[in-house]
Every structure is written in structure tokens, then in C-alpha cells.
């Protein structure tokens, strides 16, 4: 069945298998690509929490891959993009076809199925840069030769392709938080979701015969705590929260601020049409042409805004709050050189200074009448 729904990321109506039905609130994340060090702590935190069972050996619900060459499953992005073919962004909206609109006759979604071997190389292409570094190359922005890390979890899409494709109706989007789940009691292992998800975030378990995917750590989410991959992030690149639709955006909601107000965080491949809810601050060193294909036409402005953060106390403050607590920061405020994170009810969670105080110890300790040397 085909219904008309509105997708704000492509700024137009599009067709979807079910009618528009947004959850009460929508789980969302913002990942600052510029800060990721590819330590894979997030991948392992998820692995040890959720996918250490039998039949889950090849599963990484969270993975970090190196762009442009890396991808898990292998070449997932190249595969779906080449099937979608060249498409066009207009001045105000996406003019091309989404994965729903490009579905061939008899299908619900444009799809492809990775081969089993594609799931076996989780970090293929790690740290490989875009090309050969020529003699005499020097650093300038963007870099002549570049790479960056892409952190990937399920996007808990507003219009999930996985959910649309399931012939059993075994996938559902929770009305209370927008988390997309596969009902493990009713999944029949048809793998339509796996073929349909353009981001390839559905995995198959050969022991249970069912498909499995990221559950947004819903037990911690329900108690106001951050998900495992957010909480453990060494680079403090991840911010967890709730996203509003653009017309309801709040200045003091951290995700809204980054996505809707400053527009510094962008969805990954918005042209797919699923309205993904993980947003990325694009890497400033990479080729803008490549980035525009990944994050849409807003990339150049987003990078310019990001680079200007030092002159934008609110943005700077929020970027510093990112990763500063294991609790979900739902409101924030920047005042007198301090950024403060709050719960939705206004209880303070954490505060960070915009500028770390600088302490310089005098050369001589007068009380002890000694000089402070760095000599042992």
C-alpha cells in the first residue's frame, strides 16, 4: 500500500508503505565525526552487552568504518547508491527518488542483499586514505588526501524501510520513543528487512533463524541513561537526546539546537527517504563533493558553522557538554562561560566551563623555600 507522508529532511511529501504516524517523542543521536579516534570502544561496548550470544558472531550493531573505502557490510553504500542511480537535489527539496519511490514493481522498497562474506570483514579499509599522497603535499583544509571515521548504529528511522518491508508485520516503532524493534517472538526470518534497510543495519542469526538489530539500549533509555555506545565513547563525540520536527524545534533542546537551529548536524543519506534519526557533524578535512553526497546540500554551511564555534558560545558550550555525562541531557543553557546540562524537568546534570581555567604555579614555593624544578 502506498501512502503520502511528509519527510522534512527532503522537504517534501513522499510515498511510504504505511500512513504518517510519528511517535510521542523520537530517540536521536548526534555524532561529531571530527572528534572520533576510531578506538572502537563503542563497537565493543555494544558487542559485549548485546551480541555475545551464539549466532551473533558476525554482528556489530555498532560499527565504525573508515571512509571513503571502508564499509560494513562490505560496500553497502556503493551498492545501494548505484542501484538508486544519480539523483538530484533541487534548491529547496530533494527532487530525486527515495528507496520507496524507486522500488521496482512488486516490491515495497528498492533493495539489495549483501552476501554472507560481506558481513565477515567488519573493519575492512581501516585508516586507508582517499588517494596517494604526492611528494610536497602540505596540509590545508579540506585535505588533498583524506579519510574519516563513520560511526554507525541503526538510525531508528521515522519511516523505517525495514518495517515497511516486513511481510509479517513483525517490526514495530515504539510510540513512546520511536525506537524500531524486531519482535523476536514473531519474526519468521524472511530477511526482507535485511534487504530493505538501505543502511544495512539488520543482521541474521543462524541459530535462532531470526533477524536482529540495534535496540537503542531501550532498558537504559527508559531510565534516562545513555545507550552503551554513547556512554562509553572515548572521544566524547556522541550526544543522545530527542528530536522534534523542525516547526517544533526548541532552542534549549541539545539535538534540536544542533540539527534545526544551527544546522550543524545532518542526517546520513537523507535521499534514501527513511528520515534517519542519527545526525552527523561532517568532517571538515574531507572532500565536500563526497560529503554532499553523504549528507546532502547542507554540508558546506554546517562545516562553516562548526569552524566558527569558537565565536559561538552556545554552540561551543553544547559541543563541550557532549559526552560529559552518562545521563541524557534534554535541556541546556550557556551562561557566564559555563555550559549546563539539565533533565527535561530542569534538574541539573552536569556543568562544564567553556574555557578550562589555567593555573600557573610560581617558580618558587615560598612556604617551603624551594624552587620547583622538573628535574627528578
Amino acid at each position, binding site marked *: 500500500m502506498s501512502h503520502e507522508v511528509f519527510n522534512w529532511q527532503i522537504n517534501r511529501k513522499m510515498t511510504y508503505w504505511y500512513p504518517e504516524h510519528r511517535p510521542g517523542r523520537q530517540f536521536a543521536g548526534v555524532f561529531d565525526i571530527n572528534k572520533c579516534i576510531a578506538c572502537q570502544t563503542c563497537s565493543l561496548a555494544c558487542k559485549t552487552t548485546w551480541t555475545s550470544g551464539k549466532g551473533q558472531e558476525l554482528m556489530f550493531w555498532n560499527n565504525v568504518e573508515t571512509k571513503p573505502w571502508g564499509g560494513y557490510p562490505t560496500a553497502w553504500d556503493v551498492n545501494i547508491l548505484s542501484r538508486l542511480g544519480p539523483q538530484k537535489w533541487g534548491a529547496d527539496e530533494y527532487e530525486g527518488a527515495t528507496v520507496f519511490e524507486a522500488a*521496482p514493481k512488486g516490491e515495497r522498497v528498492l533493495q539489495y542483499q*549483501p552476501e554472507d562474506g560481506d558481513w565477515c570483514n567488519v573493519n575492512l579499509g581501516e585508516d586507508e586514505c582517499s588517494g596517494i599522497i604526492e611528494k610536497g603535499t602540505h596540509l590545508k583544509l579540506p585535505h588533498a588526501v583524506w579519510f574519516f571515521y563513520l560511526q554507525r548504529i541503526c538510525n531508528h528511522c521515522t519511516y523505517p524501510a525495514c518495517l515497511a518491508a516486513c*511481510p509479517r508485520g513483525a517490526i514495530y516503532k515504539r510510540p513512546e520513543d520511536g525506537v524500531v524493534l524486531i519482535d523476536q517472538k514473531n519474526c519468521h526470518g524472511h*530477511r*526482507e528487512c535485511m534487504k530493505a534497510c538501505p543502511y544495512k543495519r539488520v543482521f*541474521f542469526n543462524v*541459530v535462532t533463524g531470526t533477524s536482529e538489530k540495534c535496540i537503542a539500549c531501550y532498558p537504559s533509555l527508559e531510565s534516562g541513561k545513555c545507550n552503551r555506545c554513547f556512554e562509553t565513547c572515548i572521544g566524547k563525540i556522541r550526544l543522545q537526546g530527542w528530536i522534534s520536527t523542525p516547526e517544533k524545534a526548541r532552542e534549549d533542546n541539545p539535538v534540536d539546537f544542533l540539527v534545526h537551529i544551527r544546522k550543524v548536524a545532518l542526517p546520513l543519506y537523507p535521499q534514501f527517504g527513511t528520515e534517519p534519526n542519527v545526525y552527523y557533524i561532517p568532517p571538515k578535512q574531507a572532500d565536500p563533493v563526497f560529503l554532499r553526497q553523504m549528507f546532502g546540500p547542507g554540508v558546506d554551511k554546517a562545516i562553516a558553522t562548526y569552524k566558527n564555534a569558537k565565536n559561538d558560545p552556545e554552540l561551543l558550550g553544547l559541543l563541550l557538554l557532549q559526552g560529559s555525562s552518562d545521563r541524557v541531557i534534554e535541556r541546556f543553557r550557556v551562561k557566564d562561560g559555563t555550559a549546563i546540562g539539565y533533565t527535561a524537568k530542569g534538574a541539573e546534570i552536569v556543568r562544564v566551563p567553556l574555557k578550562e581555567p589555567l593555573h600557573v604555579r610560581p617558580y618558587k614555593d615560598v612556604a617551603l623555600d624551594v624552587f620547583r624544578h622538573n628535574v627528578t
Partner: protein
Amino acid sequence: MQRKIIFPILTVFLLLWYCTPEASAQKKEVKILPEKVVSKFQAGALPLTDPTSGVWLNLPASTVKLIPQDVQEPKLAAPSIGSIKVRSINNGSWIAFHIEWEDATEDFNLRADRYSDGVSVEFPLNPKQPPDHRMGSEKEPIHLLLWKAYQQKAKEGTSFLALNYPNRWSDYSPYELPGHSVSPAHAAEIKGLLPAVALGNPIVPGTAPVVEEINAETWNKVTIQEDQDAKGKGTWKDGRWYVVIARPVITPDPQDAPLDGGSSYVAFACWDGAKANQGPRKMVTEGWLSLEIGK
């Protein structure tokens, strides 16, 4: 005059509505084919787990034509198994269907990119008013007996993990050390690591019966029956599948299609794993065939 205008407007409106996806979703198509399947009475035990027995192969067979499932997305784009040979006997307590078809490869593996061969026999729950033969209609369920090659292999002891990844390393529960027995408390904990197992998903390989009894009331209203009494077995030999699917003729289960009246309807569906047939991507009969049960 007014009537003259209203009538064409109404007709156009109705026609337009009929063409909308909503309308086509509700459209129920009941087709009764002229072909018949006759289940011969034969006293005594039936070789329910021996599909290549002469008892079956000496019976007269009807060739039943199959077409790709083309009403519900995802549809089957390319035809796979064009026809099946159907035979049936009953001994008063069990009714069995012997289904034979040509398939160059035996597909039973379970893996992200592997699909299983399979076949199903379907009956209307209400033989007086049969619903759409493919997956039933709203409030008019069908009773489906499903045989899948992978479920049989799992039941026979095949581990798809060991089969596909002989050198795998499963970082698993310390309570499951080789050579040590697992206490019941720890067994529950281990089970919890596999949500589909913990929740009792009836399709989990090894726990599912070889022939699964299902009720379907449209494409996404599918329930696996509480009481599983069907039997059967498949054997692949020289490029052909031979499958027996059997069920009791009379059962107290209200979810089972009644066959005690001596006649009903029957339909079939078939999956070719090598062609990625799975779920609604299947070959189906064009409609219901009449079923006559000899006494």
C-alpha cells in the same frame, strides 16, 4: 436530469476508489479450479516418514500448475517451480499428501544469503465459504501445513553455525564450558542470550516441528498453532523433492480445517531456495482445488 449527472459521477468515483491501493488490499479473490485431488482410502499404517516408498509412487498423481505469487508485495518476480505432482491417501485417521517436484539443487542451508526449499498444503477453515487461497481473507482464515527443508535438517541435528562457520569462535557463557554439565539456573541464563529462544519463537530451528501448522488470515496475520500434530518428511533425490505432509483427519482443535465432511478444498505453495524464494516470494496454485476424501 440531476440523476443523470450524479450517476456518472458516482461511477467515476467508485472506479477511482477501486483503483486505489486500499481497495486492492481489501480485494478478496476466490478462485475454484476445475481440478480435483482425490484422497484414496487405504486401511493400515501409512509410510508418513518415507516419501520414496512405493506406496506413494504407485498411486495415481495429479499434476498441479503453479504460478508466481503476484498479489501482495513482495511478489515473486521470476517463476521458479512450474508444477508439482500431488498424490493423496488416507486411512480414516490420517490424511497424507505426497508432493513431488523437480529441483536441481537441495537447498536447506540457513544463512543470511541462503534460503530453504519448501512446500505447503492449505485448507479453508470454512469449506462452505473458502477465502482467498493464498493467505486467507480477513476473518476467514486458512489452515496451512508448512514443510521447510531447513527445519527438517535442524531437527535431524544439523547446526547451521557449525555448517557455515566451522572455524568460528563464539564468545559464550562461562556456564557452558565443554565437558561440564549446565545447571538449570544457568541454562535459563544462557537461553536469555537468544531472545527468540527465550520468547519461545516457534520457528527457531531445532525446536520447530518438521511440518508446522499455521493459521493465516491475510498476509500479516499469521499464527503458529498451539497444538502441533502434523507429520511429514522430505527427501531430495536425483534432482527431485519427494515430500509427505500428513495431518489427522478428525481433530478436536477448532483451529484445524474440518475434513470430516468427506470433501473440502486444497491449495499448494512451493519455495525454491536457490532462487531466493522465501515468505510471500513463492509459487502458488491459481486457486483452490476440490478435495475428495475417500472412505
